[in-house]
């Protein structure tokens, strides 16, 4: 991430898409004397980026914004290698800006309000609420499908609105969400986290050893994902295929009871305090015996504590009474705004990115799984041969998880604006935490949250989005 002046070229004088110089803009701002000071500073820093296209006419400018990837090397590759090459081949100046993942919604809202900003905007979850503001991404999907076959159902259901028949986003990747568990500790307990039953059985022993289970019930993304997946394993769903709320069920009561038991017997109060980083840190500190997260934990451990890394193994989500159902951990979702200035280049960029996804797959250290499986040949063999994995072949299971146990939030229905709202207001962790702490009975919680989810669904139904 050495130099994230992520432009192929950002000429000193040109503002993307306009013909105003920075100096003029500052004059407009009336910054007066400060202009001179600032002008100097700009010249100095801009000199660092030498334009590669000097003397050539650029066909256009493409502006992309995406999160700062948890693997810094991915950003380096994307900004400095991939985008550069693509820009040269397509005679386009590509500017990539990065933003903290948590700041994405604020910036997206600001761009929509301004009706101006980047051509391609990256979300980390399906942005159903923005449907009216984006183009239909069907062309991109079609184009890629011509070359790479079928899109993965998880990506399809997360980005397609069945009611309006519109692709409100384009998913290039998703991250599978495996169980991370400590082989040494579970070995001592004499069990494996293959079923939720086993987890509950092992939990008291593991906690007594000082290594509790860590399934979060806090206002953060990992808790959201783990709990929603656990619900599905018990046959509890927020909505059905027809996008009607079906939360109030005996299965929901069962999963809430189970989670309460798991908390009482095998977890500690920490799970209510967590940020998205907490389960990573608790695993890295060697405290937790099990948690659910994408591969950021093992990847960090490989860098800072290889010994510990070799004791953490990955598995598919434990099986519940209803079966084994997992969720994606994050869903990469690009949108092209209706007000984007360079829609053509934007579409081509996304098609090209997905069609040859190997670079992205490898540079993300297998974090980004392609939404078109055949966009990366031999996925299983590639993950199996991960050079740093200890024990060797550790990441092979990711391919299996991606294939069989990765669904979209809101499954069996499509991900929609109501699911998104429930997700962003952390209402699932709230429901679980209230039951775990004894604030509500499982029965009452199922009823209360069913009612409030219906309200949210009704609101979006009235807006014609469900």
């Amino acid at each position, binding site marked *: *991430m*050495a*130099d*994230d*002046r*992520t432009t192929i070229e*950002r000429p000193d004088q040109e*503002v993307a898409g*306009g013909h*105003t110089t*920075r100096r003029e*803009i*500052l004059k*407009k*701002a*009336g*910054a*007066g*004397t*400060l202009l001179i*000071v*600032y002008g100097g500073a700009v010249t100095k*820093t*801009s000199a660092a980026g030498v334009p590669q296209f000097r003397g050539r006419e650029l066909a256009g400018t493409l502006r992309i*914004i995406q*999160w*700062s*990837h*948890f693997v810094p090397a991915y950003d380096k590759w994307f900004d400095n290698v991939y985008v550069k090459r693509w820009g040269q081949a397509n005679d386009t100046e590509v500017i990539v*800006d*990065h*933003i*903290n*993942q*948590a*700041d994405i919604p*604020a*910036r997206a*809202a*600001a761009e929509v*309000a*301004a*009706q101006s*900003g*980047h051509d391609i905007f990256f979300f980390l979850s399906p942005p159903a609420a923005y449907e009216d503001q984006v183009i239909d991404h069907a062309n991109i999907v079609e184009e890629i499908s011509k070359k790479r076959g079928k899109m993965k159902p998880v990506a399809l259901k997360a980005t397609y609105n069945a009611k309006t028949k519109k692709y409100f986003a384009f998913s290039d990747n998703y991250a599978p969400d495996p169980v991370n568990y400590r082989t040494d500790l579970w070995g001592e307990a004499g069990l494996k986290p293959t079923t939720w039953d086993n987890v509950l059985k092992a939990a008291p022993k593991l906690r007594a050893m000082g290594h509790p289970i860590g399934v979060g019930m806090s206002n953060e*993304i*990992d808790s959201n994902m783990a709990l929603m997946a656990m619900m599905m394993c018990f046959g509890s769903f927020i909505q059905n295929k027809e996008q009607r709320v079906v939360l109030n069920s005996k299965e929901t009561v069962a999963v809430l009871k189970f989670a309460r038991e798991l908390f009482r017997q095998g977890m500690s109060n920490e799970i209510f305090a967590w*940020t*998205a*980083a907490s*389960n*990573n*840190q608790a695993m*890295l*500190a*060697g405290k937790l015996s099990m948690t659910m997260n994408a591969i*950021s934990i093992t990847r*960090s451990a490989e860098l*800072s*504590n290889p010994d510990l890394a070799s004791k953490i193994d990955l598995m598919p989500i434990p099986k519940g009474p209803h079966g084994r159902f997992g969720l994606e951990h994050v869903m990469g979702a690009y949108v092209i705004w209706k007000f984007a200035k360079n829609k053509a280049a934007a579409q081509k960029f996304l098609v090209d990115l997905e069609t040859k996804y190997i670079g992205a797959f490898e540079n993300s250290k297998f974090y980004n799984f392609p939404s078109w499986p055949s966009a990366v040949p031999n996925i299983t063999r590639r993950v199996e041969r991960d050079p740093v994995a200890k024990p060797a072949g550790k990441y092979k299971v990711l391919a299996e998880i991606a294939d069989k146990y990765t669904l979209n939030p809101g499954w069996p229905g499509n991900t929609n604006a109501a699911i998104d709202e429930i997700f962003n207001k952390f209402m699932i962790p709230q429901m679980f935490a209230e039951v775990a702490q004894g604030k509500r009975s499982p029965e009452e919680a199922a009823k209360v949250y069913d009612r409030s989810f219906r309200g949210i669904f009704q609101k979006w139904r009235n807006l014609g989005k469900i």
Partner: protein
Amino acid sequence: MPLTRRSKLVTYLVVGPFAIVLAFPFYWMLQTSLKTELDLYNTENVPFGFANGSPTLDNYRFLFSDTQYAHWLLNTVLVGLAVVVITLVIALPAGYALARLSGRWGQSLGVGLFLVYLVPPTLLFLPLSRVIAELGLQDRLASLIVVYPGFTIPFATWLLMGFFKSIPRELEDAALVDGASRLGTLVRIVFPISVPGILTVIIFTFSLCVNEFVYAIAFITASDSKVISTGIYTELIRGDVFYWGALMAATLIPSIPLALLYNTFLDRFIAGFTGGAFR
């Protein structure tokens, strides 16, 4: 007035603990910023000590060589200074006019301006975002320079109004009699006496600018135009991985010189406030 030994002791016993509590987080940032990740994530280690390769300056090195931290600092200072200038240019005449030239409605207007602080920035950034785009300032530092005075001018005007009221009218009248114009009097007589008030405005304005972050997130994503709050969030919190050591270093670095600066000018700041807020 020299203090007796007893009251000296009492002073230390009261001020000391306050200082310790208030400054502790900064000591803690320093401690954390000098640690390796391995040391940090080892619960067996004594957090007040060092182990596993600590202490190290790696986090600081990382900030300055692998991120554009220095650049973000500079941007923050530039925005702060530019906003200070704009604020003074607009608030000085307004404060004077409200103090001297207008009657009761001036008072009400002063209070009215103050209400600006109540408007929550949580959503206000949306309409403003439109304004910024219309002006062609998206992703430019200038966007912040234009927006911030919206909430620095009111306080500045209000404070300066009070300050000008405290200046004896006779001084001005004498100059006016000598044939100076009102504006001339303002520039040559009134403003120089008002230095403490102006200083108060400068410090207050600057600290508001450094603290703001909602607009900074919404308006600027280009890495070389970011200010510290937003730049650090982008580079040092990656998904679910926090770079704690570097985060702490990044907080510590601007805080210390700013606190030194505030402390140096504190007596004048206080004088400015005394003059301004209560006349």
